[in-house]
């Protein structure tokens, strides 16, 4: 007999007792699964949105991109002859100026310029409005029409320049009239450049005449292709790659429209999923406590079942079915809550990323959340049920029955091993980053075990101490070590949630610190690009004449590409896919006699400052990893058709976080001086002078682009902050779950507290003594838990920040102190509530009942 039918019948009868004692159990499942559902379903909507809008995000079915030069006519003809629709655009960064009523009001700021043709966009809709928000008809026709040059601006750019629709702005050598406000740019997400500045859209004709496109200007030229509906995108792409095998442009198609965005979102979703899973694991402790308490209450019934001939497997099924039914109830509420949260958040996310995807419910996302929910449910409830089955029917002959004791029997151990393995497999399967999945699982398991034994350790240590104190202190001390103490419950319930919260705060804090922290100290105020050779002297003179300018560094920037390594074509010589970026598009090359700032020689030696001899090159670590080269090997680069072969003199590491200009390939003097080149520069200036010099440079050198670090960092920080909110919400849910778990654990102690309070009151203890005793106990345990949580989280964050993110570690005492305070507040408040309840219990009625 399988026993399932009978098990179900008995389970349903047992459940007539209602949900008493299952509140925390249900809450733990609801919170955990709701968070995972929200993350998974939103992620599925994001993926669907990116896929659905792939063509408009990419701007076409196929996109060819080349830096510096437009794509050749040959490829346009080749694609045009096949009947495909084409559109070309150019993207570059540049300064945009606005003139105020008087000189002091003029402003200039960095903008991401996009120059489009009449066929833009091939997919999606380009929407522009007038000053009142009314959509413009045919915005492209207006843009391409004759007369004054016209520009459409992001609302943010309008604000930065303090202009309105109808106002005039300067870009390069031309003046433009602001004709409309960009409401939707369908391919903004697929632009592939970090959104460090707001957008301005002009016509290609205007860009060509603006003087911004000088030889060597950092401009990205895009050719977008719209295929016939029945054309095979893979085949066309493959044709282009075959027929233009020697070209160095980057080609992408709609099947992978926004890889960097997708990679980023994948990472974010993984991070959020893992934190949500932590919430579920913390909830697992609540599940364990609730099931253990429930099974303790069922021991007589189990013994009775056994005495009337029930087989063990039938009893096991009876209780596992009950857990399943109750768990499913919590799970369904969790799934619904998660979907609701996802539905509420979706419109904001959709607008942020300009996606057309409507909110949808994804069964696969629900399945993942449900599987996580069920596995956690059974992982934490199987133990108490299995242990309860060991109750002997002989106990029915006794007055008192012992509570369920946790014993790792072979059956228990095997069940836990199988369920843990399944949970790990699920984490592994859903994680795009397998390494992180392994780290997380091992870390979470060790942390759980640690906090379990931390309680045991605290009790042991306190027992080793000589008995101390009198009155309240002594009661607190004995409460911590007495049999049936709540010490492990506090460390376990709060520990994991606090650890995650501190971990997230420390990683986030260190990340922001790394991105923005060094600005005030060593970073330059401005990056300057596209300085022409004939402008260099005037530019340097301007800086020299300006007060407070310091640390001016200029570097030649020559475009070229790696052709071969030790005589082998670079495509064949590369051994690391991660560094394939070295081969895509032209790279910037430079030459110098002095070792660049913030570089450290790892192998070989730097050349003499007066070196004259065969070409030498210094390469960064990435090049070594990409090709496995060492000093003495040779690298050949192609600069505008001329090949230069240089011996690798040294390999160096660069600290990019110092916002320094550094090149992957830096040549010794003599090899590249005569190649066509532009210049890059960095300089520092008093922050109050930044606006003035920015305006001055953009007026004197309209083609030069200035990136103001403080402004760019503000944008980056804004983005980080938005991401941080989602991550923090997930972490806080883990902590809230822990609070519920602790509430449940403390509630279970209520009867004992009342009993103790009654006895102490009877023996003459004052309310103050009793309150002080209990609150001291909770405060000590809360603080010790917080200390342990911050120690573990600091170690985890340090490992992640220094080993995986490869950033510098900053100790953030504020985070640690606030964690300790949070833990203290939680334990003292929860403990305080229980204590007051116990104190308010009338002594007489209790003793009468005794």
């Amino acid at each position: 007999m399988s026993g399932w039918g009978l098990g179900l019948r008995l389970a349903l009868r047992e459940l007539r007792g209602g949900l008493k004692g299952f509140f925390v159990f249900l809450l733990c499942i609801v919170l955990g699964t709701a968070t995972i559902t929200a993350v998974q379903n939103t992620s599925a909507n994001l993926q669907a949105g990116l896929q659905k809008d792939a063509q408009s995000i990419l701007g076409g079915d196929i996109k060819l991109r080349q830096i510096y030069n437009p794509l050749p006519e040959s490829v346009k003809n080749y694609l045009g002859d096949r009947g495909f629709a084409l559109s070309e655009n150019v993207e570059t960064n540049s300064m945009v100026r606005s003139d105020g009523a008087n000189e002091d009001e003029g402003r200039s700021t960095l903008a991401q310029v996009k120059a489009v043709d009449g066929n833009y966009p091939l997919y999606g809709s380009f929407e522009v409005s007038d000053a009142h928000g009314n959509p413009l008809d045919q915005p492209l026709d207006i843009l391409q029409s004759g007369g004054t040059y016209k520009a459409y601006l992001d609302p943010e750019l309008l604000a930065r320049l303090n202009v309105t629709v109808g106002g005039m702005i300067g870009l390069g050598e031309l003046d433009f009239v602001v004709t409309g406000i960009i409401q939707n740019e369908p391919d903004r997400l697929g632009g592939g450049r970090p959104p460090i500045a707001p957008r301005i859209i002009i016509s290609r004709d205007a860009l060509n005449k603006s003087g911004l496109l000088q030889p060597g200007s950092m401009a990205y030229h895009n050719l977008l292709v719209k295929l016939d509906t029945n054309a095979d995108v893979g085949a066309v792409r493959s044709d282009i790659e075959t027929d233009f095998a020697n070209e160095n442009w980057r080609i992408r198609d709609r099947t992978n429209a926004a890889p960097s965005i997708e990679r980023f979102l994948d990472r974010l979703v993984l991070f959020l999923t893992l934190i949500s899973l932590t919430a579920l694991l913390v909830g697992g402790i609540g599940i364990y406590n609730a099931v253990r308490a429930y099974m303790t209450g069922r021991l007589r019934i189990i013994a009775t079942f056994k005495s009337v001939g029930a087989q063990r497997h039938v009893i096991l099924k009876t209780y596992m079915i009950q857990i399943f039914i109750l768990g499913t109830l919590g799970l369904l509420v969790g799934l619904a809550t998660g979907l609701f949260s996802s539905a509420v958040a979706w419109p904001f996310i959709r607008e942020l990323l300009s996606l057309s995807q409507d909110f949808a419910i994804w069964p696969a996302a629900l399945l993942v959340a449900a599987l996580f929910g069920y596995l956690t449910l059974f992982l934490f409830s199987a133990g108490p049920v299995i242990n309860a089955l060991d109750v002997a029917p002989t106990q029915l002959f006794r007055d008192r029955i012992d509570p369920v004791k946790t014993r790792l029997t072979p059956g228990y151990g095997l069940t836990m091993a199988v369920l843990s393995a399944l949970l790990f497999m699920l984490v592994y399967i859903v994680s795009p980053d397998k390494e992180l999945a392994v780290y997380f699982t091992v870390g979470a398991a060790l942390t759980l075990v640690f906090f379990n034994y931390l309680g045991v350790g605290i009790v042991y240590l306190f027992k080793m101490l000589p008995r101390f104190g009198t009155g309240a202190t002594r009661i607190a001390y004995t409460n911590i070590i007495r049999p049936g103490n709540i010490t492990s419950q506090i460390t376990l319930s709060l520990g994991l949630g606090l650890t995650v919260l501190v971990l997230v705060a420390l990683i986030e804090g260190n990340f922001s610190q790394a991105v923005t922290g060094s600005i005030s100290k060593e970073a330059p105020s401005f990056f300057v690009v596209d300085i022409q050779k004939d402008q260099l002297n005037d530019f340097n003179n301007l800086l020299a004449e300006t007060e407070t300018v310091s640390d001016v560094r200029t570097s030649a920037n020559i475009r070229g590409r790696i052709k071969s390594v030790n005589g082998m074509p670079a495509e064949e010589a590369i051994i690391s896919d991660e560094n394939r970026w070295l081969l895509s598009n032209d790279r910037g090359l430079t030459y110098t006699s002095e070792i660049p700032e913030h570089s450290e020689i790892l192998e070989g030696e730097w050349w003499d400052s007066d070196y004259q001899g065969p070409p030498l090159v210094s390469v960064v670590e990435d090049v070594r990893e990409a090709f496995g080269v060492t000093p003495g090997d040779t690298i050949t680069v192609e600069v505008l058709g001329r090949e230069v072969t240089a011996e690798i003199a040294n390999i160096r590491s660069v600290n990019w976080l110092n916002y320094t200009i550094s090149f992957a390939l830096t040549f010794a003097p003599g090899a590249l001086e005569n190649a066509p080149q532009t210049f890059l520069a960095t300089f520092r200036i008093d922050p109050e002078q930044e606006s003035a010099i920015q305006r001055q440079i953009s007026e004197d050198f309209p083609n030069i682009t200035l990136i103001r670090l403080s402004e760019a960092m503000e944008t980056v920080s804004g983005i980080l902050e938005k991401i941080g909110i989602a991550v923090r919400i997930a972490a806080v849910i883990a902590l809230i779950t822990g609070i519920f778990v602790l509430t449940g654990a403390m509630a279970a102690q209520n009867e004992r507290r009342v009993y103790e309070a009654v006895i102490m009151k009877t023996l003459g203890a004052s309310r103050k003594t009793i309150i002080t005793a209990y609150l001291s106990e909770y405060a000590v345990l809360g603080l010790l838990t917080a200390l342990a949580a911050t120690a573990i989280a600091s170690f985890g964050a340090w490992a992640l920040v220094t080993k995986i993110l490869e950033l510098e570690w900053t100790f953030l005492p504020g985070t640690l102190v606030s964690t300790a305070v949070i833990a203290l507040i939680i334990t003292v408040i929860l403990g305080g509530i229980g204590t007051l309840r116990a104190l308010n219990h009338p002594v007489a009625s209790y003793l009468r009942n005794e």
Partner: protein
Amino acid sequence: MTSSDTNFLTLENIDLSLSSQAGQVDILKNISLSEEKGEKIAIVGPSGSGKSSLMMIMAGLQRPSAGLVKLSGCALNDLDEAGLTEFRRENIGIVFQNFHLVPTMTALENTALPLEFSNKFSSKDEVFKKAEDVLTEVGLSHRLSHYPSQLSGGEQQRVALARALVASPKIILADEPTGNLDQETGEQIIQLLFRLADQSGMTLILITHDPDLAARCSKQIKLVDGKIENTGKV
């Protein structure tokens, strides 16, 4: 009378020692007895003399440290846990002092439990019909769908009795069946128990502190300090 009727319950040199925090405790010492089918036996003795432990050994709920237990021709020592459970289901009915009814099940469902576990009946209806018949026999036909909390102590013990009888066991073991009942109700329960045992020819073994009740049994076994002090036909 067959030999299995004469040696229906045999205990040979039973010892029971349990370990506790205070060390090894000898609960039962060299207990031997042989009882006939259909007898009514009272186990008497002071608290802590080993009465409950002896009953647990007879029920196969407790394995002795030494000695042999045979019930209805079956050596309980040879059975594993599952075998003992099955044997108990088929042959033994137990009545507890505290009734031990399942609070979330009705009187009918509580009574039907042993039949449900036995899987001998082809349909659920059959199981519940049999349970209903037994409940009618103990005078509770009007309380079938009542939960234990809705029944008086006497009624609860009748349900427990019905549950012990429903699988037609060969022996009933009753641990102070009237211990939690007032005198009048207790008397009714005992009369019922004796009548049903007589009707079916079951062996009845009960633990009691009540000398009058012990005197109504056909035999008494007096335990003192884990040993049989005397046995005697009444």
